[in-house]
């Protein structure tokens, strides 16, 4: 049914370089959360810390009452069975074909018969649209297919938590749209807790329940989607609008005076304070596809979305 992840005061550094510090957030059970951040702010490191691949310097990560950061190696392997992780390039085993890759966790962890494994693997491959590619090796297929195969492998053990490391990087916009729909459908079907790490704003606007933003070695904000999309926090606004004016610079952060100046100039430009038109209208949420049975949570979201949309139409 999905599990809650409670992160408190997490700090990670490599040598003297602090990656991020004092990150506290709660990923609500069964909900979709997105972690945004400019490149190089340690989003992937955050993901790896969540599954215990990296040890943080301080802080705790609590899942089902157990603190991941303090578990012994053996118990950690047990807790990891709750997770499904989609790595950036799929991280498929290069020596095995797609079928064996996806069957691998089942063969290692369960005593299922080959025919049952076959049924599950084909079901998951169908889910991600890979039927017919069973015999292909990871080296022979495109990046998008590798990602989908990685997703299928992450799904076979029916995880309670699914982590996506940049599911949209290196994919064309159409494939990204399909993948986002797939993520939403999956959430409606399996009810797991999702965390997506990305810097794709379009996905962040459409897909999640919650959004977090990592910048300048800390978690700037974490909260419900609406709250962040309508936030006046300069970093959040700059990132969600993908513009140059604001605290985020090309190499590092900019100095405060320059930021003030830029934001003021932007404010003069459209006459509505620091708000540009279009960015304020709440992007409609992506809902599960027509064939997917919606659990109560998604019914509620769909009703709320419909009400919002009506209000927007009435207002116009």
């Amino acid at each position: 049914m999905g599990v809650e992840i409670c992160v408190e005061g997490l700090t990670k550094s490599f040598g003297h370089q602090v990656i991020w510090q004092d990150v506290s957030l709660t990923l609500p059970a069964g909900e979709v959360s997105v972690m945004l951040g400019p490149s190089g702010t340690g989003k992937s490191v955050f993901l790896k810390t969540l599954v215990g691949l990296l040890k943080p310097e301080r802080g705790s990560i609590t899942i089902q009452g157990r603190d991941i950061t303090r578990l012994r190696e053996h118990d950690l392997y047990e807790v990891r069975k709750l997770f499904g992780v989609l790595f950036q390039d799929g991280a498929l085993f290069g020596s095995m074909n797609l079928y064996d890759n996806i069957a691998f966790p089942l063969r290692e962890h369960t005593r299922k018969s080959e025919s049952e494994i076959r049924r599950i693997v084909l079901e998951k491959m169908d889910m991600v649209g890979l039927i017919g590619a069973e015999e292909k090796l990871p080296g022979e297929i495109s990046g998008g297919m590798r990602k989908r195969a990685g997703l299928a492998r992450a799904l076979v053990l029916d995880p309670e938590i699914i982590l996506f490391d940049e599911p949209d990087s290196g994919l064309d916009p159409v494939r990204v749209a399909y993948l986002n729909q797939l993520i939403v459908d999956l959430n409606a079907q399996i009810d797991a807790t999702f965390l997506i790490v990305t810097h794709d704003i379009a996905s962040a606007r459409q897909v999640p329940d919650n959004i977090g933003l990592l910048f300048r070695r800390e978690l700037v904000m974490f909260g419900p989607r609406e709250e962040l999309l309508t936030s006046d926090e300069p970093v959040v606004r700059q990132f969600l609008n993908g513009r140059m004016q604001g605290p985020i610079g090309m190499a590092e952060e900019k100095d405060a005076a320059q930021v003030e100046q830029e934001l003021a100039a932007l404010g003069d430009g459209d006459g509505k304070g620091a708000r540009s038109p279009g960015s304020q209208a709440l992007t409609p949420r992506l809902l599960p596809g027509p064939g997917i049975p919606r659990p109560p949570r998604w019914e509620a979201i769909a009703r709320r979305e419909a009400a919002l949309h009506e209000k927007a139409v009435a207002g116009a």
Partner: protein
Amino acid sequence: MSLSPIGALRQSGSLFAMALDVIRTIPRRPFQAREFIQQAWFVASVTILPTALVSIPFGAVIALQIGSLTRQLGAQSFSGAASVLAVLREASPIVTALLIAGAGGTAICADLGARKIRDEIDAMQVLGIDPIHRLVVPRVLASMLVAVLLNGLVSVVGVAGGYFFNVVLQNGTPGAYLASFTTLAQLSDLWAAEVKALVFGAISGIVASYKGLTAKGGPKGVGDAVNQSVVITFMLLFVTNFVMTAVYFQVVPQRG
């Protein structure tokens, strides 16, 4: 890789930690038999031919050196005894070590390193599978097994090569050469050599796996890891060889 003493200490520390992990993990069930057989076959296939090709000239050099030495000393009747002793005690474990590290270890290190930088190892850990149990233990055991078998091969080929060069090329007496075989060498020499090979196989397997699993920084990182794994393995092997030889002479009474 940092050259500071702390860095070196940390590296050796984690190498030994992994060696202990491997030893602790060996009894864990289920044993990865399939992986073990595949790896043993793989390591054997990359080492057998080079080993045979190296051990022929190696045996020949020993035969030539001993042949001329025994002639200078006027002890031709002992040339067979001395060359068997040299091949059995030192040459074959050393040749085995060089090849198991140079051919088998590098292949293991490159394989694991490539998997590491492609995130495959991380993915495996996230899937709840311990790479030490699933990948490293079968590789270490495979390289131990193959080292023991290779040691036998090198001994046979080396002794045969020595015979050929001594008898055919240096006009030695076949009868004397064969008759003196067991005057100095004894069975315990063979056992000691096999134990050495076993330990060398373990060291090269562990170092190669350690370096492979800690590779980082893209394809270049894998190259560096392979390079370091060979250098570290060689250093460890020669030190271990010295210690084991010294202990052997203390423990086992010698003939004559």
